[in-house]
C-alpha cells in the first residue's frame, strides 16, 4: 500500500470498508452524527440508504432505553473502548421491532492532535447463533422433563478423572447426596457377582462406543437392578467421557422373573399332561388291543369249528363277532395314529412318487376290484416324515376308492404346482363328492357323513390327514369342485420343497 498513490490508496480503503461483510459505522459529536456507514451497517440499521449525515440517535430512537447511547457517549468522553458480547439489541427493521444479538465494539478514533474525533462502531450479528442456542436450551429442557418423568437418572462418567457426575436421581441411586461421586465408589456398590459384567461393558465400550449393561446395585439396604445405557461423548472437550442414562429396572426384572416361573410351571404341567397322554396311548394300544385280539382269535376258531348246517346262526354270529372285533382293532389303530403319532422325524427326504407307488401296491386289490385309475404327473421330493406322508396320501386315495360313484370306475388325479412360497398338491376324484356345507365338518375327528353300513370307516381319516399337513407347517382344505367328485388341496411351505425346485410340466402322465 505504501507505494501506491494516495488517491488510489483511499479508493481501495473506501471499497474495503464499504463492502466489508460486517457493519462498520463512525459517529462524531454529542449527537453522534453518522459520518460513515458501510453497506452492511446501513442494512443493519434497517432505515433505508440515506443515513449519512443524520444523527445516530435520531434514526435509531428505539435504542433510547437500551443503554447504547450511554455507552457511546462514555467512549466519546473517556476515549476508552467499549465491548459487548452477545448483547440483545432491539432494532426496528422494515417497520418491525425485533430482537437482535450482537457482539459489538465502540472504538474511539483520535485526530492528529490526539483529540477524540469520534467513535467507530463495529458489530457481528449473532442472532442466528442465539436462536440456535435457545432452541438447544428448549430441547434440553424437554429432555430433562422426559428423563425426570420416566424415572431415569442421567450421568456423565469421566473415565480419565474417575469421576461420575449424575442427576439428582442418579446420585440417589447410589445413596449419594452429592451429585458428583467417585467412579470407584460407584463400581464398589455394584453387586460383587455383577462387577465383571460392568467391566466387560466398559471393555465393549472402547470397541463399539456404546455402553449397555444390567447390574445389581445395593442401595439403602435393598438390591436394585440397574440398567445403564450410554455412549462416548462426541464433544471435543469431553474425551473418554461416557454420557448416558440409568434406570431402575427392579420391578421389570421381578415381573420378568415371575413370568418366567409361570411359564416354567405351565411347561411342567403341560409336559406332565403330555406324558399322561402318551401313557394313555400306551394303555390303549396294549391293554385295549389285547382283549380285542383274543376276541378275534376265539371267533376265528369258532368260525372254523362250527359244523356247517348244524345251526347256521352260530357261524353267522361268530362271523359278526369277528367283524366287530376287526372294526374295533381298526379304530384303536387309527386313534393311536391320530393321538400319538409320537414325535416323528420331520426331516426325512420323502420322494412322493415312491409314496404313491407304495400306496398303489398296498391298495392293489381294491384298485383292481374297482378298476381304478390313479393318475399323477411326476411328484416332487419334499422334506418331512415318510410315515406321516404315507398315511396322508394313503387316507386320501383310500377315501377316493371308498367313496366312488356306482357304475363309475374311480379316477384319481394328483397334481401339483409350486412357487416361491408354497407347494400346492391337489387330489381330485370322480366319486360322490362332498356337499358344500360339509367341507369343514369332514375334518373333525369322529365325524361321519355316512352310515357305517353304507361306507365303513372310523371317522378319523381326514382329521388325521389335516393334522399331518399341519404338523408339516401346511394347510389342507376341501375345494368346491365344479365337476363331480371331491377335491382336496394340500399347501406345504416352500421350505419343505427343497430338492426339486423346478416346477414340473409333464405331458405324459404316469399312471
Amino acid at each position, binding site marked *: 500500500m505504501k507505494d501506491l498513490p494516495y488517491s488510489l490508496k483511499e479508493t481501495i480503503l473506501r471499497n474495503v470498508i464499504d463492502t466489508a461483510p460486517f457493519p462498520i459505522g463512525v459517529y462524531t459529536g454529542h449527537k453522534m452524527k453518522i459520518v460513515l456507514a458501510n453497506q452492511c451497517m446501513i442494512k443493519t440499521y434497517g432505515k433505508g440508504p440515506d443515513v449519512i449525515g443524520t444523527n445516530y440517535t435520531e434514526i435509531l430512537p428505539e435504542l433510547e432505553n437500551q443503554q447504547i447511547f450511554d455507552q457511546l457517549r462514555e467512549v466519546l468522553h473517556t476515549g476508552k473502548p467499549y465491548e459487548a458480547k452477545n448483547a440483545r439489541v432491539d432494532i426496528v427493521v422494515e417497520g418491525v421491532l425485533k430482537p437482535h444479538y450482537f457482539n459489538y465494539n465502540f472504538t474511539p478514533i483520535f485526530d492528529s492532535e490526539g483529540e477524540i474525533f469520534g467513535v467507530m462502531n463495529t458489530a457481528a450479528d449473532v442472532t442466528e447463533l442465539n436462536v440456535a442456542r435457545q432452541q438447544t436450551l428448549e430441547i434440553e429442557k424437554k429432555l430433562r422433563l422426559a428423563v425426570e418423568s420416566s424415572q431415569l437418572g442421567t450421568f456423565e462418567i469421566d473415565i480419565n478423572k474417575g469421576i461420575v457426575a449424575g442427576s439428582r436421581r442418579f446420585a440417589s441411586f447410589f445413596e449419594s447426596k452429592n451429585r458428583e461421586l467417585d467412579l470407584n465408589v460407584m463400581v464398589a456398590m455394584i453387586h460383587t457377582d455383577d462387577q465383571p459384567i460392568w467391566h466387560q461393558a466398559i471393555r465393549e465400550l472402547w470397541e463399539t462406543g456404546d455402553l449397555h449393561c444390567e447390574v445389581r446395585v445395593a442401595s439403602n439396604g435393598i438390591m436394585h437392578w440397574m440398567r445403564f445405557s450410554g455412549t462416548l461423548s462426541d464433544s471435543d472437550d469431553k474425551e473418554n467421557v461416557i454420557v448416558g442414562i440409568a434406570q431402575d429396572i427392579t420391578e421389570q426384572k421381578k415381573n420378568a422373573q415371575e413370568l418366567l416361573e409361570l411359564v416354567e410351571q405351565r411347561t411342567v404341567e403341560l409336559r406332565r399332561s403330555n406324558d399322561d397322554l402318551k401313557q394313555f396311548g400306551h394303555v390303549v394300544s*396294549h391293554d385295549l*388291543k*389285547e382283549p*380285542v*385280539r*383274543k376276541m*378275534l*382269535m376265539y371267533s*376265528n*376258531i369258532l368260525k*372254523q369249528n362250527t359244523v356247517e348246517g348244524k345251526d347256521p346262526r352260530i357261524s353267522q354270529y361268530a362271523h359278526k363277532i369277528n367283524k366287530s*372285533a376287526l372294526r374295533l*382293532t381298526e379304530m384303536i389303530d387309527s386313534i393311536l395314529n391320530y393321538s400319538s403319532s409320537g414325535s416323528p422325524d420331520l426331516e426325512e427326504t420323502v420322494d412322493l412318487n415312491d409314496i404313491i407307488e407304495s400306496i398303489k401296491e398296498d391298495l392293489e386289490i381294491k384298485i383292481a376290484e374297482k378298476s381304478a385309475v390313479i393318475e399323477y404327473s411326476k411328484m416332487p421330493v419334499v422334506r418331512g416324515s415318510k410315515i406321516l406322508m404315507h398315511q396322508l396320501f394313503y387316507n386320501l386315495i383310500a377315501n377316493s376308492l371308498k367313496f366312488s360313484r356306482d357304475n363309475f370306475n374311480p379316477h384319481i388325479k394328483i397334481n401339483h404346482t409350486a412357487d416361491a412360497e408354497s407347494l400346492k398338491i391337489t387330489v381330485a376324484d370322480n366319486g360322490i363328492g362332498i356337499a358344500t356345507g360339509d367341507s369343514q365338518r369332514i375334518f373333525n375327528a369322529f365325524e361321519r357323513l355316512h352310515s357305517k353300513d353304507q361306507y365303513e370307516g372310523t371317522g378319523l381319516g381326514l382329521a388325521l390327514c389335516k393334522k399331518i399337513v399341519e404338523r408339516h407347517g401346511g394347510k389342507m382344505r376341501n375345494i368346491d369342485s365344479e365337476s363331480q367328485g371331491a377335491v382336496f388341496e394340500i399347501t406345504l411351505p416352500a421350505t419343505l420343497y427343497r430338492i426339486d425346485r423346478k416346477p414340473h410340466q409333464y405331458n405324459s402322465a404316469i399312471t
Partner: protein
Amino acid sequence: MIQKLFKHVLLADDDLDDCEFFSDVFKTSFPEVKLTVSNDGNILINLLEAPPIPQADLIFLDLNMPVLSGPECLEKIRGSLELNKHIVVVFSTSSNPYDIKKMYSLGANYFITKPSDYNHLSKLIGKAMSLVSLNGGEQPAFENFYIKI
C-alpha cells in the same frame, strides 16, 4: 447248512390265553418237542439256571411280563456265560418299530408279533422254527429279524 434239532423249547408269557394258543399250535406241529411254559420272567431264568432236562436252548419270550420283563430276561441271558448261546425269539403283541429295534440291539434272534388269527399263529411258529433250525444261534440281518406271514 446247519440243521439244528430242538428237544426242549421254553415259552415265557404271562398271558394264559396266548400260552394256550401257542401250546395248541406247537404240540400239533411239533409233537416230539417238549414245551415248558413259565408265566413270568423270573421263573424262566430260574428254569434256565437250574438246567431243565432235556437241555433247552430255544426260548419264545414275551415282552410285557411281571417280575422280570422280556428285555430284562434277554439282557440276563445275553449277559450270562452259560446262557448266551441260547436262541431267543420275541413273541409279543407289539409291532412297534421301537420295540423291534430295541430287541434286535439286545441280541434277540427273531421277532414275532402275536397275530389275531389262529392260522397265522401256526404259520408264524412254523416259520420261526425252521429259521432257527437253519441258522442256529446266529442273529440275522435286521431286515430279516421281523418274521412276517
